[in-house]
Structures are given as C-alpha cells and as structure tokens.
C-alpha cells in the first residue's frame, strides 16, 4: 500500500468532493425531465466521481469503491434494464418502449410513462457509468503491460 507519495491535498480534496459529484449525477438522472440531462449525462457524472477517486488515489485503493471485475456485469445489467423494459412493453401488446403498455398495476397512464422513463434512464445511467469506468481501467492497465 504505497500511499506516501500522494499529496494529501489531492487525495483528501478528492474524497471531500467526490460524494457530492456522485449525488449530483443521481440528481441529473432523477430530474431528467424537468432540467437538461438524463441517463447519459447523469451516468457520465457518476463515472466522473468514481474516476476522481481512481485518479487521485490510484486504481488499487479505489477498486474498493467499484471493483474492476464488476464493471462489465453491471454494465450488462444496465443495458438489460433498458432492453427488458422495452421488450416487456412490446410483449404486453404495445410498441417497443411504449411506456403506456407496461404492466404496473395501480398507476394512471401519466405516472406509468413517468415510471417507464425513470426506469429506462436508470438503466442507461448504469450502463454509461460502468462502460466509462471499464474504459479507464483498460487504458490504465494496458499501459502497465507495455512497460
């Protein structure tokens, strides 16, 4: 655990700011239809908060936060949430991604659409976040193999 070479200003500053950036990303996802943003932008911000910890403290320590082996499966889960919601609406007799046809009981069509968009955006956000972290990890480790 070689952390002595890191400057405390960078590491502790990153740890102070990173939770707020992550919460801001979640805010962008959850408020996608009142303000600009949505799944993709929120996912980019979520990934940014994880990458801030990776950049500041090294991959070894920050893999405590998101394990490298988890990025691909969680990204796949994100895509499956998106695709599954669309396919479910298709199977229930609507079009693909027709939120009105989702089989959630006790909701008016307006709220059904709202819920559908929210589920889709969570899926997109998860996929974008995990793929971005995956790209960073691949780039970081590929560099070590060359040397």
């Amino acid at each position, binding site marked *: 655990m070689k952390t002595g070479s890191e400057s405390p200003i*960078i590491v502790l500053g*990153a740890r102070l*700011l990173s939770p707020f*950036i992550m919460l*801001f990303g979640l805010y*962008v996802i959850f408020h996608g239809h009142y*303000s*600009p*943003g949505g799944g993709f*932008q929120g996912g*980019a*911000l979520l990934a*940014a*908060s994880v*990458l*801030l910890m990776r*950049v*500041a403290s090294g991959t070894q320590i920050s893999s405590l936060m998101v394990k490298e082996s988890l990025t691909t499966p969680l990204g796949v889960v994100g895509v499956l949430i998106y695709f599954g919601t669309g396919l479910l609406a298709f199977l229930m007799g609507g079009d693909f991604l027709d939120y009105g046809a989702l089989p959630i009981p006790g909701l008016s069509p307006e709220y059904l659409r709202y819920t559908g968009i929210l589920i889709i955006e969570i899926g997109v956000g998860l996929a974008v976040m995990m793929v971005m972290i995956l790209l960073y990890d691949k780039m970081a480790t590929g*560099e070590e193999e060359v040397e």
Partner: protein
Amino acid sequence: MHDFFLYSAVVLMIIIAIPLLRVLKGPSVFDRLLGANAIATKTIVLITLIGFLFERVDMFIDITLAYAALGFISSLALAKYITVKRVEVDQP
C-alpha cells in the same frame, strides 16, 4: 440589466480568448495545460451569465456545476497522466 449581462458576456468571451495564445505558444506541455485550465474556469462564469441572459438560471446552473466538476476532474487526470508518463519537457 439584460443589456449589462449581454455586454459583460461579450467582454468575457474576449477575455477567455487571451489564454488561448498561451495554449498555442506555451513552451512546455504544462503551460498549454495551464492555459486550457484558465479557459475552463472562466467558461463557468460565462455559462452562468448566459443563464441570466436567457432567464433560465436554474437550468444553466445545473450545466455549470456539471461543467465545473468535469473540468476539475479532467485537469486532475491530465496532471496525473503526465506525471506517470514522465513526458519530456523542453525548457523555455
């Protein structure tokens, strides 16, 4: 007040263009990065001013915060990348 925001945004754009000279000229990589960083921090204010111009402050503040966070992280990441790679810096 609308006119004032408009003119200050225009002046700010001219001010933002000045460090671009350093980005183009800069003898070392770090000078270029510093110029880019100076542009990024000033752009934060520019976006907020545009928000006041369009009277959609709430929307533009979200954009500003996202821009500020991403700019900060990218400047840290570039600094880290250059340290690790030990890029040859040519002395001025």
